[in-house]
């Protein structure tokens, strides 16, 4: 069962040299489960999304919604076991990466698709200098000499606005502040000029003033290079600032996909509406926050029908019986709710 989305036409034959426009990266009906001692957790249950050159797709969801596991599967860094891909495709320039050899995938990592992780302290190797970790890529992947690689690495550090990049080259990660480490990670992931950048909660661990700096920097570098960006986050504020399109995930599925303006103006899924309502707002100060009742589902035992039905204020008998597919409701908008039309049309 493939949830029909907007991504009907892919970009066939767009591989090869140069920077082709169009569908860069497509995730198609991806399914992943974790086989653990306690049972099988169905972490991703048919996720479909795509990102084009130069655009930012925000994947929004709470912990356990499967947003990071999707990213790990795209990158080919899913821990197996316990994680197993049980279906679907991840196409890069039209070619299914899940069928590629390890060597082919390795060549895509860094140059085709690169990733920034949330926790820069554990993503950087503490026993090598920051400069070495960036230069390493130029040495191995580009066959540069030690001194050329160093020169390029310093340029990269300079590009992400690390002051005194030359002097900082031989510092270890612990000598950097949190914001600088995140910059160093950005430098590292952009070193081989990737076409798609996956940023997994890139600013969650940072303070707001530093967060603003990092998001600015990412936006600038993206525009310069016409990168496609997948921004994984739970922060509705950051998403509103930088995203072009948004995919909302719940219990391993996309429940809504829309243009950023449409989604905030008129959410087409009760979960999205609930999330937007949970943010403390000025005009409701002193009032109770409107919460989403209950807890996210246990992924070993996802409720039948719509997985959101036990928490949904709009739930009807049909929601307990039939899983609503992700259907297009307007051009560029899709929702996996039986009552999406009612939601969008009401005031």
């Amino acid at each position, binding site marked *: 069962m493939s949830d029909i989305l907007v991504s009907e036409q892919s970009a066939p034959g767009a591989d090869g040299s140069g920077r082709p426009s169009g569908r860069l990266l497509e995730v198609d009906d991806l399914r992943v489960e974790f086989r653990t001692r306690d049972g099988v957790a169905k972490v991703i249950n048919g996720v479909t999304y795509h990102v084009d050159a130069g655009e930012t797709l925000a994947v929004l969801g709470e912990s356990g919604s499967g947003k990071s596991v999707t990213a790990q599967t795209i990158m080919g860094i899913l821990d197996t076991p316990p994680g197993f891909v049980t279906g679907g495709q991840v196409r890069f320039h039209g070619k299914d990466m899940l069928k590629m050899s390890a060597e082919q995938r390795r060549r895509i990592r860094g140059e085709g698709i690169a990733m920034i992780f949330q926790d820069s302290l554990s993503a950087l190797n503490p026993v090598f200098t920051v400069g070495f970790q960036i230069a390493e890529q130029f040495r191995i992947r580009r066959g540069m000499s030690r001194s050329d690689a160093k020169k390029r690495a310093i340029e990269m550090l300079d590009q992400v606005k690390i002051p005194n990049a030359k002097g900082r080259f031989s510092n270890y990660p612990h000598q950097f*502040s949190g914001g600088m480490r995140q910059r160093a990670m950005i430098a590292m992931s952009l070193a081989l000029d990737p076409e798609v950048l996956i940023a997994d909660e890139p600013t969650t661990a940072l303070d*707001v003033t530093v967060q603003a700096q990092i998001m*600015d920097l990412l936006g600038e570098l993206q525009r310069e290079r016409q990168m496609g960006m997948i921004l994984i986050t739970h922060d509705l504020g950051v998403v509103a*600032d930088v995203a072009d399109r948004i995919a909302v995930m719940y219990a391993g599925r996309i429940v809504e996909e829309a243009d950023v303006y449409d989604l*905030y103006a008129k959410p087409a899924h009760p979960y999205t509406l609930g999330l937007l309502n949970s943010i403390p*707002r000025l005009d409701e100060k002193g009032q109770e926050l409107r*919460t989403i009742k209950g807890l996210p589902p246990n992924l070993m035992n996802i409720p039948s029908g719509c997985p959101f039905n036990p928490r949904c204020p709009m739930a009807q008998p049909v929601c307990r019986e039939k899983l609503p597919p992700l259907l297009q409701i307007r051009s560029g908008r899709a929702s996996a709710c039986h009552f999406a039309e009612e939601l969008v049309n009401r005031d």
Partner: protein
Amino acid sequence: MTENIIEVRDLVKHYPVTRGVVFKKTIGHVKAVDGVSFELKAGETLGVVGESGCGKSTLARVLMNLERPTSGHVLYKGQDISRLSGSALRRLRRQIQLVMQDPYTSLNPRMTVGDLIGEPFEIHPEVAPRGSRRSKVKELLDLVGLNPEHINRYPHQFSGGQRQRIGIARALALRPEVIVCDEPVSALDVSIQAQVMNLLEKLQAEFGLSYVFIAHDLSVVRHLSDRVAVMYLGKMVEIGTEDEIYERPTHPYTQALLSAVPVPDPTLRDNKAIIRLTGDVPSPVSPPSGCRFRTRCWKAQDVCAQEVPLLQIRPGSDHPSACHFAERREIVPTHEAA
């Protein structure tokens, strides 16, 4: 005027930085909290905001008397708690309780929920006689929205939000007057965060609690607080009512902080003027002379390096601000357009 339940006067907490193993030599001090004064009124919520390293968690530890201040006083109803010890201190501890940030590490994984919430009664048996403890614990579980039947479960059987509720129940066990919340919702998902915030408000109304609410999320602080204090590098830079701080901030740091908060409304993204601060927060071991914010401030003048600006009401403003050049500035308001 309502009475002040807690008064903090010129509070200073320095941690020594040492070098050497056998012959330890103090080579400097981390000036975590450096001269902070404020009061907490009965029944109010005082929000404390600031970025990491500004001293807000140290402030919580000193308020709880988990750390002794280097100098200055913390008065609880006029009594200096940093001087107390022994049974007097134990009696006082009943009145001020703490809710911690990380619901995953602040609960002992080997204790059942009943033992965790009941433990305060072991230390203060006068609150609940032995026979009535289990029923008291069940009452508390019910109060924070957990199923009293789950009294024999262990922390790992609960989700993050439920664990934070356990932490809140434990803080409530001794019927304190003040609860210090140190980032109580920052580890939680948005939808769960809202549930816990609602619970904190409900409990405050029910028991007339006073909160010191420490957080880095400015919209969370705004939602819960009556007054807000902004900290930077161990100093309080501005304090006022929630309106004064969010609508009419006068300190450049407060203004920058507010402007950097991402607003969950995409239609505002282009007409939002973010004040971009450059660089990082300086080290609290050797903070800048004069005003500590001057190294990142766009208004800095010579006087800022020479004179420490005092936290006081300045001309053209209605609340204390620690800036020589305090003035109002239009900030795109958070969430106003909603």
